[in-house]
């Protein structure tokens, strides 16, 4: 996974973007600095990128740059939380989280007047995992509890939510950072949700103007 790299040359050829665009996006931090991996090649230094991530990001930028400025895009991709001030009614009318998820979360979250970004993110992750249809409600509630207790510990919301099952028992894990883990053979990974991806999706939803949803949320529903 780590070694699947794409050279800068190949990247430009594949995506059709220019050096000017690539460097501009780097300046605006649309492409994070640590994706630029310098390796020595026979022609001297060459820059490589993690293939999946950079191609995905460039596709997103190309799709959205018509509607949003580069600075708005940069906010979207940055791991820092967005500023939010939304009430329960806003969340429902703008279709950010489902009514079911909101109702189930009430015993844990209460009914705050407005939701913070972290609370929204937790709700959103909870909602997404329920909507996959892969988990039971009880497991979902366990997830919610873990997220509420420990989401704040993740650095810049980098982490992964994992649901393991073994012989009818389930266990929820919240992993910090981008780490691999290995479970026993007869344990099944029922669900893996990268939090940073959900952060991006949530910001996208938040930035979408009322009523008009972005089409790039392919993995919804």
């Amino acid at each position, binding site marked *: 996974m780590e070694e699947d790299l794409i050279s800068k040359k190949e990247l430009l*050829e594949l995506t059709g973007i220019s050096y000017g665009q690539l460097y501009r996006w780097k300046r605006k931090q649309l492409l994070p600095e640590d994706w630029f991996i310098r390796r020595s090649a026979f022609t*001297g*230094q060459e820059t490589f990128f993690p293939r999946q991530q950079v191609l995905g990001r460039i596709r997103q930028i190309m799709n959205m740059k018509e509607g949003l400025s580069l600075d708005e895009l940069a906010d979207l991709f940055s791991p820092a939380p967005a500023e939010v001030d939304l009430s329960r009614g806003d969340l429902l009318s703008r279709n950010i989280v489902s009514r079911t998820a909101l109702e189930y979360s009430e015993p844990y979250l209460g009914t705050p007047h407005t939701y913070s970004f972290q609370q929204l993110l937790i709700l959103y992750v909870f909602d997404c995992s329920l909507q996959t249809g892969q988990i039971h409600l009880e497991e979902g509630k366990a997830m919610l509890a873990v997220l509420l207790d420990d989401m704040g510990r993740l650095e810049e919301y980098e982490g992964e939510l994992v649901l393991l099952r073994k012989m009818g028992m389930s266990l929820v894990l919240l992993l910090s950072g981008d780490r691999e883990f290995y479970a026993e053979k007869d344990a099944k990974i029922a669900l893996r949700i990268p939090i940073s991806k959900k952060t991006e999706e949530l910001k996208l939803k938040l930035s979408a103007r009322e009523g008009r949803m972005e089409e790039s949320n392919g993995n919804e529903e």
Partner: protein
Amino acid sequence: MGTRNDLIITGIGVSSGGDVGAVQIDGVGTINGALSCEEEFVVNGKATVKGGVEAPKTVINGMVTIEGPLRTEGCTVEGKLKMEGNLAAESVQINGSVTVHGSVEAERLASNGKLQMDSLNADEIKLMLQGSSSIREIGGGTIEVIELEKLSSRWLKLLPMSLENSLTAQVIEGDHIYLENTAAGVVRGAVVRIGPGCEIGLVEYKESFELSDGSVVKSNARL
């Protein structure tokens, strides 16, 4: 928070830095910490900042050392600027010498003088060479490197030091590139023009490539 106080040094002065309104140093100033300015950061004379600087506008007439990053919108240097951190700006105008132990990022950078940088990333880069500049990596949209005037006085050339107007780089990448008096390992771009006085290892181009007499390009390839 209230309104911030301006930091004004006329003559010789020392300050501890911090959050200020505008900074105006006429003379010699030492700032023993980072500076966050609400308004412009102006030095006429000499100043040392033992930390980073943040200011909407930076004007340097004289000699300034910043032992940290500089984040600003418009930056003008007449004289000498030496930095230990990265420089990020909207537009940079240099007349003199700038040394940055780090990266420089800007939308536009125009310079007349001598630059030492680790990397330079700007949409429009125009370097007029005076003295020997070295930048490890240059990237951007339009990159133009020219030698404005040849060294006129012949006796200066007799001195044992290098007084050539030249640029040394490892990698130069951009959409439109024109180079003079440049020694570079690799130059990659859409439209690449190599003017006089260059020595380039490899040119990779997408649309066109021109090579003027008196320059050497070891190999070139169309992509």
